[in-house]
């Protein structure tokens, strides 16, 4: 078949792993050669990790770290510049009653809201590793991804030009599920190129797999490898618009891929579970899973993020409980 021998854009990682003659066929052979996922074992492992009890000083550490790893998100059709400004205010000062509260890693908005986020952040805009807050933008016809490549690339370039530090792109799930892995691959490579700034640096690229639409763990594993091979800096579970969104087993599986990639090449790829993580308790389980799967060095903003909006308030309530010794309530955090 002609399609199978179409040669693909030379993503540097893929060339290294698959060899120089990168074709749709060689990519498919590689992805289908990945071993299947033991679903029962995966879910048991995730359930086992979820039973750890994290208390007192470990809990305090975990809560602060969760805040530092949050991509504070608003992705609503009803978003306004004012909503984005209040989101940024919350990102900079999550808890006005306690100045020791750390800042979140990033704010995550639609592409047209990037200028307002950048303006509102002002001098606090920058790398979360330096204690600053970066701006992430969803692009490529988020959340469905149903648009032509030209539109997706224009969407991406717009956001980068407006000052986005990170681009959250969606893969074409329809193409992936119908076996056109090459199309998905090409798009990621093209979007990665569109993340290039005028000075030659790149905005960080998070590839959203939308695991809720991929149906099987095997597909999640293949899509994770595909995204990493194509040049993704992060692999992200979900858009948050599809149920189920992030689950612990899926995140564990993606972390295993990232770990394997690190063993294979020495490179670090990040993971971002997003959607459906609302309680501190759940978030702590994710931290445990990260630490036990890829190691604690992954628990920093350029390697692990939570895509969340209501999670932050729950973490703040828990923090207030630890600080004051009494249970707090929703009256003591902002209504977002």
């Amino acid at each position, binding site marked *: 078949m002609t399609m199978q021998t179409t040669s693909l854009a030379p993503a540097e990682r893929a060339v290294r792993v698959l060899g120089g003659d990168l074709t749709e066929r060689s990519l498919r052979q590689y992805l289908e050669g990945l071993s299947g996922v033991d679903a029962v074992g995966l879910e048991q492992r995730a359930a086992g990790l979820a039973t750890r009890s994290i208390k007192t000083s470990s809990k305090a550490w975990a809560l602060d770290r969760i805040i530092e790893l949050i991509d504070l998100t608003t992705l609503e059709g009803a978003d306004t510049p004012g909503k984005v400004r209040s989101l940024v205010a919350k990102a900079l000062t999550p808890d006005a009653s306690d100045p020791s509260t750390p800042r979140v890693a990033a704010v995550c908005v639609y592409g047209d809201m990037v200028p307002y986020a950048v303006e509102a952040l002002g001098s606090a805009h920058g790398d979360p590793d330096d204690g600053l807050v970066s701006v992430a933008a969803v692009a490529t016809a988020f959340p469905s991804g149903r648009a032509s490549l030209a539109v997706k690339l224009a969407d991406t370039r717009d956001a980068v030009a407006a000052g986005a530090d990170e681009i959250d792109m969606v893969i074409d799930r329809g193409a992936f599920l119908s076996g056109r892995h090459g199309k998905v691959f090409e798009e990621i490579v093209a979007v990665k190129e569109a993340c290039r700034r005028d000075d030659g640096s790149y905005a960080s690229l998070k590839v959203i797999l939308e695991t809720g639409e991929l149906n099987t763990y095997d597909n999640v594993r293949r899509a994770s490898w595909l995204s990493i091979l194509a040049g993704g800096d992060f692999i992200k579970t979900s858009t948050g618009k599809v149920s189920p969104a992030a689950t612990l087993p899926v995140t564990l599986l993606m972390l295993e891929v990232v770990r394997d990639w690190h063993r294979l090449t020495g490179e670090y790829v990040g993971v971002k579970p997003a959607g459906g993580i609302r309680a501190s308790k759940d978030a702590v389980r994710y931290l445990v899973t990260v630490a036990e799967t890829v190691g604690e060095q992954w628990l920093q903003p350029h390697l692990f993020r939570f895509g969340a909006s209501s999670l932050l308030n729950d973490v703040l309530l828990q923090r*207030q409980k630890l600080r004051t*010794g*009494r*249970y*707090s*309530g*929703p*009256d*003591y955090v902002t209504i977002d």
Partner: protein
Amino acid sequence: MSRLSIPKTYKLYIGGKFPRSESGRSYEITGADGAFLANASLASRKDARDAVVAARAAVSGWAGATAYNRGQVLYRVAEVLEGRRAQFVEELRASEGLTAAEAARQVDETIDTWVWYAGWADKFVQVAGAGNPVAGPFFNLSVPEPTGVVAIVAPQGEGSLLGLVRVVAPALVAGNAVVVVADERHPLSAISLAEVLATSDVPGGVVNVLTGSPAEIVPWLASHADVNALDLTGAGELEWVDLEIAAAETLKRVLRPEPGVPAATLDRILAFTETKTVWHTKSLI
């Protein structure tokens, strides 16, 4: 052939469900004669927290129901209670050592209390609200609204069923959601009442029943920032001044301890309401 008796393990009532204590603890309930009656869950502070979360979630629906509807639902509780009269009489006799006549009298009074308070649901606003005279072309209306989540320490000691209902029912009338810590030594009627509530039309979470040690649980409820009012009726034996101080920290309404079974009064309904006053122009053309 003799048959082994099957003592019941009583559980908590939180959010319309009957969970065991999160702590896994339980304690023995003995009758007036010292004989083993049953095991009850020994609630922990986390159960109290879960109960507050459930109550908070239930407030909007219950407070938002029409007053008439709330009255009907409360009346329905009295109906179901009447249907399970024999069980309550039996439990009161076993746990409080009452005679059949005394126990029956307490159950009757309890049912009458529900009916009495149910009747107030769509009437207390007329009594407590007002159209205030003002010097201008405005309607000025004051109406009582529910306070929100009310934590209650049920009377401890004699009259475990009647005392419980005399504190829970009035808080429900206005549309509050309730977390009640039952009589520590006589919790049977509280749990059976929870079964009555679960099988009547009271939405889950509107009433949450904790059994266990008030001395352990109530300080957490008193200081909880998401509790709006604290009824210390049965807290006379506790360090209730400290509880009141803890409650003041988050500006809760507080009812002080009262010995015995409190009387049914309109004041108990109004204790857990907030007055809202609105101005509205008389001429809008």
